[in-house]
């Protein structure tokens, strides 16, 4: 039995696990697929949008810088156009013009100078002492001489301070002159670096050789591989803005960058930002989605487990009830076949006993004849014959009890005279196999019949009496069976003065398979079957027990038939009538 239960438990656990797994898989796969697809699409469109936005920003910034440079050129051109050569060579005029430009554009213009084609600065206005400076070997001078307008890269030059030069060329009396202005690196740098997004998004400018045209960022060294990437990116970004991605120097974070060309494709504007910052919104959304997904999954798992646990335990309960029903049917069947056997035996015994008794009677008859009257042992013979007669009567009583018991093995619902039933069950209970046990009945003769199956009521009484006998087996004692009419119920009390039931077991005695008997002696179904029968009849059973004080079972059988509504109606009618 215990093994069987263990097997069932294992089976139900396995079943629960399998069902939960199946449902989890079935619900997770679509959930994960849908959320995966949605998230993927979302990231794609978010990427597109973010890059489009950055492109726009970088493009505009490049335009801003370009227009800044062009404006400076225009300033110089205007200056050149507004003055003739003599004026320009006059340093006081140049000073005044510089002052005007500085007034208008702040510190953008650092100085002004006019350089002849030999590379000598003929006039100069500014804070550095660069009068008559020699530029003939300077790279920028050579390049500027070949073009009407020129903007140099950033370089240190004679003053040893990073700066760059804007120059405009003029031909005067067959000779070239350059009007040049130094643009403040600080001013340009602040304009160029004006674009900052978040904590890690910033811009810088490189020339085609990879030299910084803005203040180098703290970790941007020309030796870095990433740095070369930027240059290559710049080469690729001929018309459009190039977008790339690389790993930072520490090799930890991914960095996105956008590169755009400016200053007639001489310079590369690079915008770079840590990817995790640029995509922080997306990452946050992904985290939120993951959390929601996780919570959802957790809920599904928990709900499934609870649900299936309930379903399985319900089925287990149903199984158990079915098993009990089957047991009950088997027990009833057993009782019925015992009944049939008893009936058959009783009938077969009746005939020979009848012959015996009649033969004894015949001897009695014959003894009355005179020849036997003088017999020496006449009295002894008569006594023996009487004994045969009385034992024959005893046999008859026994067979009648058996027959009466057998008649009541019919499971159909009928009236049961509870008092008679109790007497019979007491008569057939195996009290004789125990010594020192007495069974006393206190039956209320006015108790009306109850409705139920004879067999089942018999079984209830047999079970209770046998349990009481079992309890008294060791030390003996008494069993009192009382019937009483109480509140429209027939109350049957079966009470013993045995060792009682410990409190811990008291709540469980009606549970199926609960038994305190040694293995093989009881299946733990007796009381649960009693409980089932009494409940089916619409009655109740209670137990009261104290350790060493004995046990009392109170059974309340309803007086009317609880099953057929017809009877119920009838009884209602009857009670109304009696009320009148």
């Amino acid at each position, binding site marked *: 039995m215990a093994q069987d239960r263990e097997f069932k438990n294992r089976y139900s656990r396995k079943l629960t696990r399998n069902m939960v797994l199946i449902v989890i898989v079935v619900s997770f796969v679509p959930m994960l697929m849908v959320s995966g697809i949605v998230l993927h699409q979302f990231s794609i469109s978010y990427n597109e949008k973010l890059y489009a936005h950055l492109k726009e920003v970088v493009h505009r910034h490049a335009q801003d810088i370009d227009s800044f440079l062009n404006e400076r050129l225009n300033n110089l051109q205007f200056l050149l156009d507004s003055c003739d050569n003599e004026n320009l060579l006059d340093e006081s005029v140049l000073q005044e013009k510089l002052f005007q430009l500085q007034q208008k554009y702040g510190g953008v213009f650092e100085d002004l100078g006019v350089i002849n084609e030999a590379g000598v600065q003929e006039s100069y206005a500014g804070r550095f002492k660069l009068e008559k400076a020699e530029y003939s070997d300077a790279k920028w001078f050579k390049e500027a001489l070949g073009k009407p307008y020129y903007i140099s890269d950033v370089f240190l030059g004679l003053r040893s301070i990073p700066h760059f030069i804007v120059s405009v060329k003029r031909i005067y009396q067959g000779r070239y002159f350059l009007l040049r202005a130094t643009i403040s690196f600080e001013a340009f740098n602040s304009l160029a670096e004006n674009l900052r997004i978040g904590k890690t998004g910033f811009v810088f400018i490189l020339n085609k050789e990879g030299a910084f045209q803005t203040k180098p960022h703290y970790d941007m060294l020309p030796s870095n591989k990433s740095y070369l990437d930027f240059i290559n990116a710049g080469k690729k970004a001929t018309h459009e803005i190039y977008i790339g991605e690389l790993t930072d120097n520490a090799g930890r974070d991914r960095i996105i960058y956008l590169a755009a060309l400016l200053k007639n494709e001489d310079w590369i504007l690079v915008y770079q930002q840590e990817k995790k910052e640029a995509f922080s919104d997306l990452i946050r959304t992904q985290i939120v989605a993951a959390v929601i997904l996780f919570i959802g999954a957790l809920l599904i798992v928990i709900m499934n487990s609870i649900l299936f646990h309930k379903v399985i335990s319900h089925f287990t309960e149903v199984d158990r009830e079915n098993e009990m029903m089957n047991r009950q049917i088997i027990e009833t069947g057993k009782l019925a076949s015992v009944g049939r056997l008893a009936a058959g035996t009783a*009938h*077969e*015994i*009746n*005939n020979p*006993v*009848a*012959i*015996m*008794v*009649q*033969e004894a*009677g*015949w001897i009695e*008859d014959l003894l009355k004849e005179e020849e036997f009257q003088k017999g020496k042992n006449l009295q002894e013979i008569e006594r023996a014959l009487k004994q045969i007669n009385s034992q*024959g*009567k005893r*046999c*008859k009583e026994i067979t*009648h009890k058996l*027959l009466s018991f057998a*008649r009541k093995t019919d499971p159909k619902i009928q009236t049961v005279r509870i008092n008679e039933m109790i007497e019979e069950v007491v008569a057939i209970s195996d009290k004789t196999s125990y010594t020192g046990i007495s069974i006393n009945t206190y039956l209320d003769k006015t108790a009306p019949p109850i409705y139920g199956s004879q067999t089942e009521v018999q079984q209830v009484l047999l079970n209770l009496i046998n349990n009481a006998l079992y309890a008294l087996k060791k030390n003996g004692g008494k069993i009192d069976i009382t019937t009483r009419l109480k509140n429209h119920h027939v109350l049957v009390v079966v009470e013993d003065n045995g060792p009682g039931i410990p409190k811990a077991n008291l709540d469980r005695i009606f549970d199926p398979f609960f038994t305190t008997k040694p293995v093989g002696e009881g299946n733990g179904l007796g009381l649960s079957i009693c409980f089932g029968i009494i409940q089916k009849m619409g009655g109740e059973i209670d137990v009261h027990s104290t350790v060493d004080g004995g046990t009392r079972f109170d059974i309340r059988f309803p007086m009317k038939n609880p099953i057929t509504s017809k009877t119920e109606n009838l009884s209602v009618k009857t009670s109304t009538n009696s009320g009148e």
Partner: protein
Amino acid sequence: MRENENANKKNIKLLLVDDEKRFVEVLFKRLNKRNIDVTTAYSGAEGIQALRKVDFDVAILDLKMEDMDGLEVLKIFKKMYAKMEVIILTGHESEQTTREGMKYGAFAYISKPCDFEELICTISKAISD
């Protein structure tokens, strides 16, 4: 007193139907000793045959016989000769058969093993009615 009773029962013609041969024999002897004129039959058919020849005052009938059911025999007896009272004497009594037996006109129902004096008493009651 018993002698008087026996004298009164002179000429009682009784038909005893039972397939239990030993029982029939001993009962025959005992009834004869009480001056009852007993005819025995060991089956339902024999009983019916016997009733064709003689109008018995009373019959003792077993219910469970090999050839016929006692209740069937009872019905036939009552059809053939309604004046004859039938006492059912059986080891196979049950509430149902008792009820049916009474319905078909049995006079009394006695279960085996029976007290002989009770049987005699029932016979005399059957006759006097």
